[in-house]
């Protein structure tokens, strides 16, 4: 919403502030000023001069030499503009003054253009006569200005006076960010009311005088509202004997400052009232309304209608239409029809001031793909009482401007009267909500400034219908806070019962996971939760796989963001790919984020959101690097049991010979492996990629933060080494299972210290060597004890067909 300071001042005459003061104070009272533009920026030493004499320039055909009376003296100005004549009054910038821009109307330089006296082709020039562009404005705002020439001031301008003042350029235009609850502030009157309250000045809203001749509108037009649910109020008035002409300068300037191009008096009046009251107005050509009738009703499904922009549009039953006796003539609140639009031939006009259901207008505009200035206002939900006031204001302006003859009377179909809301006032409660001690009388003073009524008997605030945002005491508290000043409210800390600050258990575990991943060299990545269904193909997921059962988004930004991910690999592989293709070497990334598994599709309840720790690397590191991070994490999480790795698992995105499920206490808690080379190709990664994924909800139940000290061993350990040749398909894990199960109580640890596969070994076999450590807590082990334990282990290994080497 844009509004000029001068327009608001018209309703708050005592308002005397700079643009910056206005900006700061209005922002703090709740009408946020996003930016402002001072129209007199860089306009210095510009006064009214009168051209007394014009002579040809002796040395240049395209220049003239003017003698200009500037009051106390006459100065000589050389100019190339040829639209001036002797006797004209013009804006003159004196030596040492400034103008805002060049005569070409291009972008205004930040510091303006300094004007100095000097010689033009040998002839002294003491200043410059200005075009409207040089004054920083445009012909949009000053349509009477000549194209490419000096602006000619009115004949009654007084020589030597401030020309900037005369042109109304000592003004500023503000851009407001109005919050959606303050529909009333999408109008100059509403903003002026706020300004008056903010600066504690008198507010003088426009006074709407009765208008109209002795005739009766009922003799001209009939109105029928069939769908009153979508049109709570419809007002119509008729103006005949239209005399189209430009509107007066004051109106044109106010419209231009609001960003609206002046057109003619009738169009300008409707636009002016829309800005002033925030109420869109529509004008129909009376002679084009068949049967001189207006019927407001829903469109028929599939109706074709040509809007005044020439487009043919298809309606549906939820779009409200304005009809005459025979046909549709306008989409209510959105845009009029080609068939009833105002032309220069207009003789009689029907003004519409209506209130339509905001939600319906918003939804209709969206379905039709036609969002207009009017629909933008209506969709916020307008006050039906403003419609009545605005249409009368328009007719008053028609009379003031002599734009036509207003027919007496008004048609007003107001099916459900909007009543002011009454809110119980309780100063103590307001103070206890705000943490203040503001006297009740002071609060009531604020309400008065805002035109809120007050019922002393019942101690109730009466919110006028234009204030649709006031319903409860908290709303009143905000009004008090705004005008008491948020700045003046004390700052305290909550008292009351102390609470313990902490992370949830899940977040504590996640924090450890992040720490372990980072200490292991992995950096944290963040990727989107939604992705493309094509991801499943890239990851080689079979067609009927359950992972393809993803939650779809109804209105995605595109196919690439259309489903909620069911596995976390795509994000990580995409990030690794980005790095790889930017030639970053040795990249290790991890992500801790959710996947979304639907319990059923279509979704009837929320999906299962499962947080996944995903590790991935290329370059330095391998399978056992990511395996190491998994085990470091389990260690830190107090998961002391043996972790098992199950290579026989269904992970199509992993290398078939380099993959495993991670099994803890019989439960698959994740998987790891080398990414299948075909998948890596799909992601354009030309290197081996290793990844591990932990399904954290499965890990968390095993987490144990309890720690108990077990005593540092006092008695010596005994080491025994064994070396064996085993068939390749026997896994180290199976051998370790035997050692762990058969080592007995005295087994302390075991460690693989040699692994060899090659020519010296029987084909299809490998050689493994373990160092096994035994220790007792309470005595020095005897040879017999150790040998007994070793014998058990060796027996077990032999049963597996393992040959021990000497």
């Amino acid at each position: 919403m844009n509004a000029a300071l001068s327009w608001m001042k018209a309703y708050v005459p005592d308002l005397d502030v700079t643009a910056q003061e206005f900006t700061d104070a209005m922002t703090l009272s709740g009408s946020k000023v996003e930016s402002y533009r001072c129209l007199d920026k860089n306009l210095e030493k510009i006064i009214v001069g009168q051209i007394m004499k014009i002579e040809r320039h002796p040395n240049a055909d395209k220049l003239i030499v003017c003698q200009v009376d500037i009051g106390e003296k006459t100065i000589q100005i050389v100019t190339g503009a040829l639209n001036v004549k002797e006797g004209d009054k013009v804006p003159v910038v004196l030596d040492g003054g400034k103008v805002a821009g060049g005569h070409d109307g291009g972008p205004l330089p930040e510091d303006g253009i300094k004007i100095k006296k000097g010689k033009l082709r040998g002839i002294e020039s003491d200043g410059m006569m200005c075009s409207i562009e040089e004054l920083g404005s445009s012909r949009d705002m000053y349509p009477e200005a000549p194209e490419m020439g000096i602006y000619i001031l009115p004949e009654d301008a007084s020589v030597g006076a401030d020309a900037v003042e005369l042109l109304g350029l000592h003004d500023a235009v503000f851009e407001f960010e109005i919050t959606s609850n303050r529909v009333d502030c999408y109008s100059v009157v509403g903003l002026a009311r706020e300004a008056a309250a903010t600066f504690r000045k008198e507010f003088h809203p426009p006074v709407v005088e009765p208008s109209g001749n002795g005739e009766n509108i009922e003799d001209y037009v009939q109105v029928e509202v069939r769908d009153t649910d979508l049109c709570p109020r419809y007002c119509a008035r008729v103006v005949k004997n239209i005399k189209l002409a430009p509107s007066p300068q004051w109106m044109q300037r106010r419209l231009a400052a609001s960003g609206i191009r002046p057109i003619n008096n009738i169009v300008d009046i409707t636009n002016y009232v829309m800005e002033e009251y925030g109420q869109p107005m529509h004008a129909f050509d009376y002679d084009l309304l068949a049967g001189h009738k207006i019927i407001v009703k829903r469109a028929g499904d599939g109706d074709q209608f040509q809007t005044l922009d020439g487009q043919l549009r298809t309606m549906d039953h939820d779009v409200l239409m304005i009809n005459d006796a025979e046909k549709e003539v306008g989409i209510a609140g959105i845009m009029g029809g080609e068939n009833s639009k105002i032309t220069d031939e207009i003789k009689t006009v029907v003004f519409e001031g209506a209130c339509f259901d905001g939600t319906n207008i918003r939804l209709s505009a969206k379905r039709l793909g036609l969002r207009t200035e009017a629909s933008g206002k209506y969709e916020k939900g307008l006050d039906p009482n403003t419609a009545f006031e605005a249409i009368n204001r328009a007719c008053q302006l028609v009379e003031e401007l002599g734009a036509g003859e207003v027919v007496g009377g008004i048609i007003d179909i107001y099916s459900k009267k909007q009543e002011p809301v009454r809110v119980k006032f309780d100063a103590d409660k307001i103070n206890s909500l705000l943490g203040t001690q503001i006297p009740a009388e002071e609060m009531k003073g604020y309400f008065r400034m805002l035109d809120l009524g007050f019922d002393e008997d019942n101690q109730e605030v009466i919110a006028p219908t234009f204030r649709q945002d006031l319903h409860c005491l908290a709303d009143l508290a905000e009004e008090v806070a705004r005008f008491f000043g948020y700045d003046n409210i004390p700052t305290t800390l909550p008292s009351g019962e102390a609470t313990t600050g902490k992370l949830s258990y899940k977040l504590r575990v996640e924090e450890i996971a992040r720490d372990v991943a980072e200490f292991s060299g992995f950096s944290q990545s963040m990727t989107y939760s939604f992705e493309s269904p094509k991801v499943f193909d890239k990851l080689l997921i079979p067609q009927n796989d359950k992972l393809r059962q993803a939650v779809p988004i109804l209105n995605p930004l595109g196919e690439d963001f259309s489903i909620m991910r069911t596995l976390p690999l795509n994000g990580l592989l995409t990030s690794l790919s980005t790095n790889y293709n930017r030639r970053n070497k040795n990249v290790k990334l991890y992500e801790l984020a959710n996947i979304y598994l639907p319990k059923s599709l279509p979704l009837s309840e929320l999906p299962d959101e499962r947080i996944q720790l995903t590790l991935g690397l290329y370059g330095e590191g391998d399978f056992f690097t990511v395996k190491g991070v998994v085990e470091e994490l389990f260690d830190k999480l107090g998961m002391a049991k043996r972790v098992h790795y199950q290579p026989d698992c269904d992970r199509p995105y992993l290398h078939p010979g380099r993959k495993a499920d991670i099994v803890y206490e019989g439960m698959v808690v994740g998987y790891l492996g080398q990414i299948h080379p075909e998948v890596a190709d799909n992601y354009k990664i030309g290197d081996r990629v290793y990844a591990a994924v932990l399904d954290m909800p499965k890990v968390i139940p095993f987490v144990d933060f309890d720690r108990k000290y077990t005593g540092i061993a006092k008695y010596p350990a005994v080491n025994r080494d064994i070396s064996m040749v085993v068939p390749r398909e026997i896994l180290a894990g199976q051998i370790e299972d035997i050692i762990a199960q058969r080592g007995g109580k005295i087994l302390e640890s075991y460690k693989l210290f040699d692994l060899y596969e090659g020519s010296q070994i029987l084909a299809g076999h490998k050689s493994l060597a373990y160092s096994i450590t035994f220790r007792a807590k309470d005595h020095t082990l005897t040879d017999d004890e150790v040998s007994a334990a070793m014998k058990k282990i060796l027996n077990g290994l032999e049963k597996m067909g393992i040959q021990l080497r000497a």
Partner: protein
Amino acid sequence: MKEQLERIKEEALRKIEASDALEKLNDIRVAYLGKKGELTSVLKSMKNVAPEERPKVGQMVNDARALIEAKLEETKAALARKAREEQLRREVIDVTLPAKKANIGHSHPNMVALKEVERIFVGMGYEVVEGPEVEYQDYNFTKLNIPPNHPARDEQDTFFINPEICLRSQTSPVQARTMEKGKLPIRMIAPGRVFRADEVDATHSPSFHQVEGLVIDKRITLADLKGTLAEFAREMFGEDSKVKFRPHHFPFTEPSAEMDVSCFKCGGKGCRFCKGSGWIEILGCGMVHPHVLEMCGIDPEQYTGFAFGVGLERIALLKYEIDDMRLLYENDIRFLKQF
């Protein structure tokens, strides 16, 4: 005899003097003081000495022995010292050669900012909780005083799954979920992912993070809200940070405000970060709307509260001077390494 002793002594001392290695010293010891050493043989020839002379000669031999031993020890120590010095000289390294780093990974800037926010609020007694990212519209909207057909539900802002379920467009539904649990008082923050239908560009992302805050107790005031958030700003942006509260509108708070913090780049003088205003918009906040309290089963006559929501990316971008939001989701290691 005496001359012989003198000669042995002189000779031994000279040899010791000339020694440049520990082994040589040992040889000398054996040659003179050993069982078959020269001095020992002198002692052995004592039987040829007149008995009255013997003590005197014995003394002389002992003196010579002591002298040689002392000299041996002294020289040995000197050689050891020399050897240590030699070792130290040999072991000089170029301390400016590259360090061997463990190459620890880096946290995402969002996480760095979040940890900071969590640290501050946990210190003030807030619990960190979470809520679902795919959320019932009832929690995302209705219970936050955004009834059906409210423009805020418009498709342009929210991703929908079906008429009941959407991707949460804010962390505020966690407010409603926490209140519904009925455990009072409440002091919580809820960080998490949120989703809005914004095309990806330098300042927008369809997925970003917020941190919600909620305090519900008896006698909580707008003044408490101001005090708490001013404290947060000082901790987050520096001790000298000032805050400014501007009235605003959110459906689920009343009164509502936006909080600006004095620009932490220029200190409020005006620069490109604050677009010359000296202030940076940081968060939205307000007193929990009584209607919301009621819908979540809390008696607004008994309890009041405040709530706030901070955009994590906004803080990360401002604090770390990141000029393009897309960098946050590309995960280029050269970017991540800076945090």
